[in-house]
C-alpha cells in the first residue's frame, strides 16, 4: 500500500509538471487508491480531449527523496556542526576538542569493525530482514587451502602480500607455470604496497598527507605531528620480491614493466625506475600514460641535476609520448606542475607554458592544477612582480564553475588561494574565493579539519583587517562556531578591528566566547582585552568590570594549576583601574594587595586614580595607604602623592607625621622603606 501511495504522489507531481496535458488513466495502472482521484481530474482537463500524452513513469534514485530533503536544511549558525551533535557534554568547543571528538568517534567504529572481522564466528546471527550485507563480518582469510593459481588469485584479491608471494613460490617449486595475467596482478600488488603488508584499511576519514606538513609550518600552531600514512616511509628495497618475481618471469609484457616503474617511483626509487624505462624502450614495448606520469615524476626526483636539465628531460618525455601516440591526461600535467613547484623561480615560465598547453589540448584543469600554480608563484611573498596577477587570472577563470574531484590534491586549492588573498590583503579577491567555495558542491573541496581552520582563520583575519566592523561582526556570528573555532590570534585580530572602529562595548561578549572556545588561559588574548578595556574611560553601563573580574578569576585559577604563577603587571594595572572606574573600590584595593604579593609595580596613573577615588570617598586613611604603597616600591611619584594628600585631605596630626616619615624614608634609602613597609 505504501508503494501505491508513493506512486500516487509521483503522479501528482507529474501533473504539476505538465499542467497542459490531458490526464488519462495510466495503462500500467496499479494503484487503486489513485483511481478515486482520477475522474475529477479528467473532468477538469477533458475539454480538449485531443491526444493523450502519457507521461513516462519516472524511476527515482533510491536517495532522491533524501537528497531533496537534505537540500532544504541550512546550516544552523548558532549550533555546532551536525557531525559534533552528541551528548551535550561531549559537544566540542575548541578545535582541539573537535579533532579528538572526530578521532574518538572514528576509532570507536574501527575498533568495532576490527573485533567483528577478527572474530567472525561470533557474529553470525543475521537479524536484519532483508539481509544487510555490510553488517556481517567480512572474510579476510583465504578460503582455498590447496596450492593452485586460484588460491594465488584469492590471496591477491585479499591483498595478502606475503601469503601471495609464498603461494607464488610454492607454485613455482611445484613446477606450475603461473599465467601472465595473474603474475601481473601479483606485481601490481607488490608494487603498489612496496612489498610491505598493507596496513589495515581503517584509516581515518580525514587523512593527513606529507604535504600538509609543509603548509602547516606557515601557521606555527598548526604544527601537527607527522602521522605516518599507511604507505608513508616505505621505500623501495633493491632485490625485493617484486624485482625477484619480475626477473623470474619468463615473458613480460608492457603491463609488467609499467607496474614496476610505477611502483619504483611511488616508493622513491627514481634511478631504478628510469633504468627500467630504458629497458622497456629497448624491448620496444609501449608505456601507458600512467607510466609516463610516473617517469616524469622520476625525472624530477633525480638529485644532482639542474632544474634546466630536469625540465629538458621532462620535455623529452612528453615528446616521446607524442611519438608513441600516448594521450596525456590531467594527471600528466598535474604531475609536471607538481614537480615544477620544486624548481622555484625557474619553474614559472614552464608552468605557464604547461598550463597553456593543457588548455590548448582541451584538458580542463582541476583545482589541484591551480593549487600548484599558486604555490609556485607565491612561494615567497612579493618575490616577483609577475606573481600578483596570476591569482586574478585564475579566479577569473574558475569563477562560477562547479568542480568534481579529479586529483588527490584538489582539496588544497582553497587553502592556498585564501593564503594568497591574505598576503595580498585583497578583500575583494577573498570574497571571490569564498564565493567560489559556496558554488555548487565546491565546499566539499575545503579539505580536512586543519585546512578548513586555516582557510577560515585567514579569511576572518582579512575581514577584521579590511572590512567594516558591522560586516565583520556579521561574519563572526555566521562563521563561529558553526563553521570553525577561532584561534586566539584570530580573536586578537577581531579585538583590534573593534578598537579601530571604537566598538569596544562588544568586548565582554568576545571574552565570553573566547572562554568557550578554549582560550581561557591565553595570556596574550587576556592582556589585549584588558588593555583595550582599561585604556580609555567608558560609561559605567558597559560591563567591563565584570569582565575584568572574570579574567582575574582565570588568573587565580591559573595560579592553582601552575607551579610558577605569573601575573603580568599590565593585567594587574588594568584590572585595578577597571574596578576603580566601576566603583568597586573594595576589589580594587584587593588588587593593590596583589601588587605587593607578586612584587609588581603599579603604574603612576593607577595610583593617581586610586587617589581620586580616595578623595571621592573623602577617606584620608586610604590616601595615606596609597602613599605607603608608593613608598614601599620607592616610586618617584611618592612625593607628589604626599603633597596631594596634604593639600586635598583633612589630615590629622598623626597622619601628617606618618606621611612625613614615609617621604623621609623613601628619600633615605630603599632598604629602609622595605622594613617600614613591614610585611
Amino acid at each position, binding site marked *: 500500500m*505504501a*508503494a501505491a501511495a*508513493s506512486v500516487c504522489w509521483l503522479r501528482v507531481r507529474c501533473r504539476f509538471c505538465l499542467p497542459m496535458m490531458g490526464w488519462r488513466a495510466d495503462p500500467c495502472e*496499479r494503484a487503486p487508491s489513485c483511481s478515486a482521484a482520477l475522474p475529477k481530474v479528467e473532468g477538469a482537463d477533458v475539454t480538449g480531449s485531443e491526444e493523450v500524452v502519457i507521461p513516462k513513469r519516472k524511476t*527515482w534514485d*533510491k*536517495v*532522491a527523496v*533524501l*537528497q531533496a530533503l*537534505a537540500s532544504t*536544511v541550512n546550516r544552523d549558525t548558532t549550533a555546532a556542526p*551536525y557531525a559534533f551533535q552528541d551528548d551535550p557534554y561531549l559537544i566540542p568547543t575548541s578545535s582541539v576538542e573537535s579533532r579528538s571528538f572526530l578521532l574518538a568517534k572514528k576509532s570507536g567504529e574501527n575498533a568495532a569493525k576490527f573485533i567483528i572481522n577478527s572474530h567472525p564466528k561470533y557474529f553470525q546471527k543475521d537479524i536484519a530482514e*532483508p*539481509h*544487510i550485507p*555490510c*553488517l556481517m563480518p567480512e572474510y579476510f582469510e583465504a578460503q582455498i587451502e590447496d596450492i593452485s593459481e586460484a588460491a594465488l588469485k584469492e590471496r591477491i584479491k585479499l591483498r595478502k602480500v606475503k601469503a601471495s608471494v609464498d603461494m607464488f613460490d610454492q607454485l613455482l617449486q611445484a613446477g606450475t607455470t603461473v599465467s601472465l595475467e595473474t603474475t601481473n*596482478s601479483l606485481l601490481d*600488488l607488490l608494487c*603498489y604496497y612496496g612489498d610491505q603488508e598493507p596496513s589495515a584499511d581503517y584509516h581515518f*576519514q580525514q587523512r593527513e598527507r606529507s604535504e600538509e606538513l609543509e603548509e602547516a609550518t606557515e601557521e606555527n600552531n598548526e604544527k601537527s605531528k607527522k602521522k605516518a600514512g599507511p604507505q608513508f616511509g616505505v621505500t623501495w628495497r633493491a632485490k625485493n620480491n617484486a624485482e625477484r618475481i619480475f626477473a623470474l618471469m619468463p615473458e613480460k609484457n608492457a603491463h609488467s614493466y609499467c*607496474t614496476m616503474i*610505477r611502483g619504483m617511483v611511488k616508493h622513491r626509487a627514481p634511478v631504478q625506475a628510469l633504468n627500467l624505462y630504458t629497458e622497456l624502450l629497448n624491448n620496444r614495448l609501449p608505456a*601507458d600514460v*600512467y607510466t609516463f606520469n610516473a617517469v616524469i615524476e622520476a625525472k624530477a626526483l633525480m638529485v644532482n641535476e639542474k632544474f634546466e636539465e630536469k625540465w629538458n628531460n621532462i*620535455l623529452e618525455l612528453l615528446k616521446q*609520448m*607524442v611519438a608513441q601516440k600516448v*594521450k*596525456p591526461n590531467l594527471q600528466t600535467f598535474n604531475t609536471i606542475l607538481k614537480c615544477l613547484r620544486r624548481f622555484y623561480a625557474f619553474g614559472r615560465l614552464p608552468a605557464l*607554458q604547461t598550463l*597553456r*598547453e593543457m*588548455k*590548448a*589540448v*582541451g*584538458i580542463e584543469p582541476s583545482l589541484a592544477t591551480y593549487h600548484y600554480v599558486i604555490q609556485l608563484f607565491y612561494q615567497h611573498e612579493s618575490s616577483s*612582480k*609577475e606573481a*600578483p*596577477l*596570476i591569482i*586574478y*587570472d585564475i579566479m*577569473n577563470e574558475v569563477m562560477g564553475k562547479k568542480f568534481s*574531484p*579529479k586529483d*588527490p590534491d584538489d*582539496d588544497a586549492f582553497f587553502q592556498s588561494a585564501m593564503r594568497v588573498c591574505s598576503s595580498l*590583503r*585583497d*578583500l575583494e579577491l577573498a570574497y571571490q574565493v569564498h564565493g567560489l567555495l559556496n558554488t555548487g*558542491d565546491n565546499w566539499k*573541496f*575545503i579539505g580536512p579539519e586543519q585546512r578548513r581552520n586555516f582557510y577560515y582563520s585567514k579569511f576572518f583575519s582579512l575581514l577584521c*583587517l579590511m572590512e567594516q566592523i558591522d560586516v565583520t561582526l556579521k561574519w563572526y556570528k555566521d562563521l563561529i562556531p558553526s563553521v570553525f573555532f577561532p584561534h586566539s590570534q584570530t580573536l586578537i585580530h577581531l579585538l*583590534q578591528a573593534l578598537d*579601530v572602529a571604537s566598538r569596544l562595548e562588544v568586548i565582554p561578549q568576545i571574552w565570553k566566547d573566547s572562554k568557550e572556545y578554549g582560550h581561557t588561559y591565553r595570556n596574550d588574548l587576556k592582556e589585549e582585552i584588558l588593555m583595550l578595556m582599561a585604556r580609555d574611560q567608558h560609561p559605567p553601563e558597559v560591563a567591563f568590570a565584570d569582565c575584568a573580574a572574570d579574567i582575574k578569576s582565570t588568573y587565580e585559577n591559573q595560579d592553582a594549576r601552575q607551579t610558577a604563577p605569573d601575573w603580568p603587571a599590565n593585567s594587574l594595572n588594568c584590572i585595578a583601574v577597571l574596578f576603580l572606574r566601576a566603583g568597586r573600590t573594595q576589589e580594587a584595593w584587593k588588587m593593590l594587595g596583589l601588587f605587593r604579593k607578586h612584587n609588581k609595580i603599579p603604574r603612576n596613573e593607577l595610583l593617581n586614580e586610586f587617589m581620586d577615588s580616595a578623595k571621592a570617598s573623602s577617606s584620608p586613611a586610604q590616601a595615606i595607604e596609597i602613599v605607603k604603597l608608593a613608598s614601599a616600591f620607592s616610586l618617584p611619584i611618592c612625593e607628589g602623592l604626599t603633597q596631594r594628600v596634604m593639600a586635598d585631605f583633612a589630615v590629622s596630626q598623626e597622619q601628617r607625621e606618618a606621611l612625613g616619615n614615609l617621604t623621609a624614608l623613601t628619600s633615605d634609602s630603599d632598604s629602609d622603606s622595605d622594613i617600614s613597609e613591614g610585611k
Partner: protein
Amino acid sequence: MFPRVSAVLRLRPFSRLPSCSGGLEALAAAAALLGASRGTRRTKNNIQRYFGTNSVIYGKKDEQSIPTQEISKETESQDGVKENMKKDLLQIIKGMKVELSTVNVQTAKPPSRRQLKSLEATVGRPQRAPGGAPKERRESLSPELVAAASAVADSLPFDKQTTKSELLRQLQQHEEDSRAQKDGERPKISFSNIISDMKVARSATARVSTRPVHQIQFDEGSDGYVGQEKTIGLRKSLRKNIFKGKRLNIFDLKAVTEGAPEAETAPSLWDVEFAKQLAAVNEQPFQNGFEQMIQWTKEGKLWEFPINNEAGFDDDGSEFYEHIFLDKYLEDFPKQGPIRHFMELVTCGLSKNPYLSVKQKIEHIEWFKNYFNEKRDILKDSNIQFN
C-alpha cells in the same frame, strides 16, 4: 590597532606612487600631456584619466630607463620610420604654436586649489626645473629635430629658452608615445610592469571603498570608481596573456581528443586505489541528518525511499501483478467443471503466496497440467472432460 594603521600608512604612499615618485621623466611626460590637450576642462574625471595614463607611462619608463639609448638608436637606424616620424613631429610643431601659449597660461594659475596636491606638484615641478631633465632627453632626439625646435622657438615672440624646452618636451612625448605603442606589441616587457601598476591601483581603491576615513585623502568617491573600472579593464586585457601565450607545442589537439579509445581492461589495483583516493578528496562530515541517512541508504542499512514493501525482494524484475493475476495460465484447462474449479483455487492460493517467484508459480501450474494429462484415462473413466 597598530598593525592595521601601519598597513594603511604603508599603502598610502603606494597610491601616490604614480604621481610623485615617478621621477622627473614621468613628470615631464605628464606635463606634456596636460599641455597637449587643448582647452582642458579641469574636471575631476579628466584629471583622473591623466593620472591613469601617467601611471602607465611611468610603468613603461621604469623598464626602459636602461635601454633607452639602444632603442632610440634602433629607431634612427630605420630610416623610413624616422622620416615618417619627423614629418609627424613637424606637423605637430606647426599645430602647437597656439597651444603652447595656453599651456603657459594654465600653468601660471592653477585653476582650483581644491585639487589634489600631487597634481600641483606635477604641473609645477617641470617649470621650476626645466633644465635638467629635458637636457638628458634631448640626447635621444635627433639633432635635426632639436634644430627645428629651436628654429620654431626663435620665430615666436615669447621667451625663447622656455619655448624651446617646451617644444622639446612635446617632441619627447611623441617619441615616447610611439615607442610605447611599439612596445605594446611586445607583451613580455609591458606585462610585469602593468601588473605592478595594477596592484597598486587596486589596493588603493579597495581602501577607499571600505574605509570612509581614508577618503579624506581622495576628494570624492568617484575617483575610486573610475580607477576600479580601469583596473578591471586592465585585468581583463591581461587575462589573455596568462592562458593564451606561448605553450609547449608538444601535443596536438586532434591527437589528444580524437584517437582510438584505449582497449578496455579490467581495472588494476592502481586504478582502484586512485579512485578511492579521489573519493576521499571531497569527503566531508555530514551536514545534516538526511545526509547521514543517504550514506546509510548507500550502505544498505536503511529502507530505501520511497518506502516499498517489495524492498529487497528480488524476483527477476517481475511486477506484482504477475504474481497475482495468474488466470492467463489456465487457458489450456477446461473452461468449467471440477478441474477448472480446482485450478482456480490453486491460482488463488498461489497469488497469495509471497514466498514463490513468478517462475515457480508458473511451473506449479504446469505441473498440474502435466499431471492431468497423464491421468487422462482415469479422467475419461470418471467422465470428466479434459480438453
